[in-house]
């Protein structure tokens, strides 16, 4: 994992993030390669803090963050990473007069998508999230789920190599979530996609790998399948609606009682 030339597009070492006196992330080591990675964890576990550091919008308190082959504390590399980055924050705003097309095009302009390619890239991104028929509607006239999809469109407009989505499925109805997972799998073939969510069924359906974060540390890393198997191993059949939910609960419980150590456990320790 610490070889000089890393195959991972994201590798972080000893990442610590503090907000005033609370510690959001505590000396976390993680790495991600091409594929769709799920970030699971209870509210306040540090998912959003991690995503914001990876999106280069928040500086880490301590630790080293390497994205797409370089340390992002160097301004020139940070700018180069930002050109190849897609980011959907948990909450985002837009200018009141913008249509969907203008909103996505403005983000394409900020991301320095070449001017000649921008109009086509905007239409493609909007079509990929299923908003093509509303492309010239004002964003403020859209329902919550549609605004969310417009947000996903701006994140993918520059065909990012690293895509960071913070709670992307919040506000989508079940059907739209199914479509969205298919889009995620498609994006994950060529890019590193990191999705923070609290919906375990998203992880089960779309992610090739899952990372559970609890209390600012990594509680579990593995495949969704392995997480589901964990519950059976622990003999926890008494709660949760499906194997992954049970596995998630078991992983968090083990993490809290400090029982990490077996294979696949506690990469952050």
């Amino acid at each position: 994992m610490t070889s000089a030339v890393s195959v991972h597009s994201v590798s972080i070492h000893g990442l610590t993030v503090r907000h005033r006196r609370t510690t959001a992330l505590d000396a976390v080591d993680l790495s991600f390669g091409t594929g769709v990675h799920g970030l699971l964890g209870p509210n306040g576990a540090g998912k959003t803090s991690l995503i914001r550091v990876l999106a280069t919008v928040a500086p880490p308190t301590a630790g080293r963050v390497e994205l797409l082959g370089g340390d992002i504390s160097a301004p020139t590399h940070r700018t180069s990473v930002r050109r190849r980055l897609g980011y959907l924050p948990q909450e985002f705003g837009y200018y009141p007069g913008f249509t969907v097309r203008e909103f996505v095009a403005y983000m394409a302009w900020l991301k320095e998508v070449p001017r000649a390619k921008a109009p086509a890239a905007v239409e493609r991104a909007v079509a990929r999230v299923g908003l093509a028929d509303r492309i010239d509607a004002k964003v403020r006239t859209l329902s919550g789920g549609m605004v969310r999809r417009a947000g996903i469109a701006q994140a993918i407009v520059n065909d990012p190599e690293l895509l960071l989505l913070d709670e992307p499925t919040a506000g989508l109805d079940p059907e739209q979530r199914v479509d969205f997972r298919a889009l995620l799998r498609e994006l994950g073939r060529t890019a590193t996609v990191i999705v923070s969510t609290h919906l375990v069924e998203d992880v089960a359906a779309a992610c090739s790998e899952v990372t559970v974060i609890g209390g600012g540390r990594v509680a579990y890393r593995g495949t969704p399948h392995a997480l589901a198997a964990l519950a059976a191993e622990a003999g926890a059949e008494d709660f949760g609606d499906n194997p992954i939910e049970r596995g998630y609960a078991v992983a968090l419980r083990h993490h809290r009682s400090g029982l990490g150590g077996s294979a696949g456990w506690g990469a952050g320790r």
Partner: protein
Amino acid sequence: MKRPRPTRRGGPAAAWHVTEPQAAAYADGSLPETDAWSVEKHVEACAPCAARVSAAVRAGAAAPALADVRAALLAFATADAPAEATAPAEAGAPRAAGDLLPGVSPAPAAPADTAAAGRAGRAPAPQLAGDLSPAPTAHADTPAARHSGPTPAPAADGRTAVAARHAGPEPGGAGGVCARRRGAFRDPRAWMVWAAGPAVRGPWLVALLVTGLVAAGAARAAGMSGVRPLLLALAPVLPSAGVAVSYGRHADPMHELAASTPSGGLRLLLTRTASVLAVSVPLLTLAGQLLPAAAGAPATPAWLLPGLALTLAALALASYVGCRIATCAVTAGWLLAVGGPALLAGAGESGESSLADALSDSLATVLSGPAAQSCWAAAAAVCAGLLALRRTSFDHLERI
């Protein structure tokens, strides 16, 4: 509350339909959001449900708003039709417009002029969407044109009702804005200029225009000689106020998104500052030219260098404490430096003219003469240098 949802494509196979209570709940806004989305998706494809929903909306609180939209659209369509359409389409055009909106033309088109109505419906509808911009027409756009004519007029009904529920009618006079924006989008250079300073279109621009107009108006109409020094005292800090309302996480709704892009940070801040200056310098200079000269006050262009220096000072300070605090601090500092002595000197005497004279005197001290102007130029250079040294501090979201 568990109920089957309509399939995504809708269509005749969809087992689920909107019930009367649901339509009523949708119309008054009490239907839960996810259910409302299902209703909206469903009425796009299901004419009976669209009719039910639009009837409920028409019976509800949105009725006056819908009537306004209908009146505006009808006026537009009837005014435009004779100029553009041939004789049969002329008769059809108002009908097609009626199909877009509830209650205007409830009777189905007679078979004889079906074709004419269809033709006319296709012609004006996209144009309406372009010109009579914001709310409902954007939704009514092409599907309405496709449906107008004999078949599911109620479907168009439902969509309009949906649009009205979300947006409500826009005040008149906004027509053409949307079309212009789309035009700007196609011309990349115009688009760049427009995109550079979203905040220039905001409340700050209104404040700036009001300042200029009130100053000019008061001076012309009432002959107040104190207006010119007052404008001179405010002009140097107005640009940095414009920057503060256009950049930073307190002011810019897209700040977090912009901060993750290569253009975020100092580059975006400077782009917005440039657009703010491009608007405010000509406006304030023009307002100054319109004012009658006051005895003892410095000439109007004297504020330009101090304005630049104070703007740069606010930017440099912003690299430490954020745009909002920096602008407040610089503005307060400037107003104290200029207004404080004037208040002290004017306090002894009474009357507004003496206060204006005192303000003129204190402005003359800090603005007039080559020495003062050289100091401002040097200050601007120092602040620009500091800003260059601090450039990477804007790369992350503002702290605090």
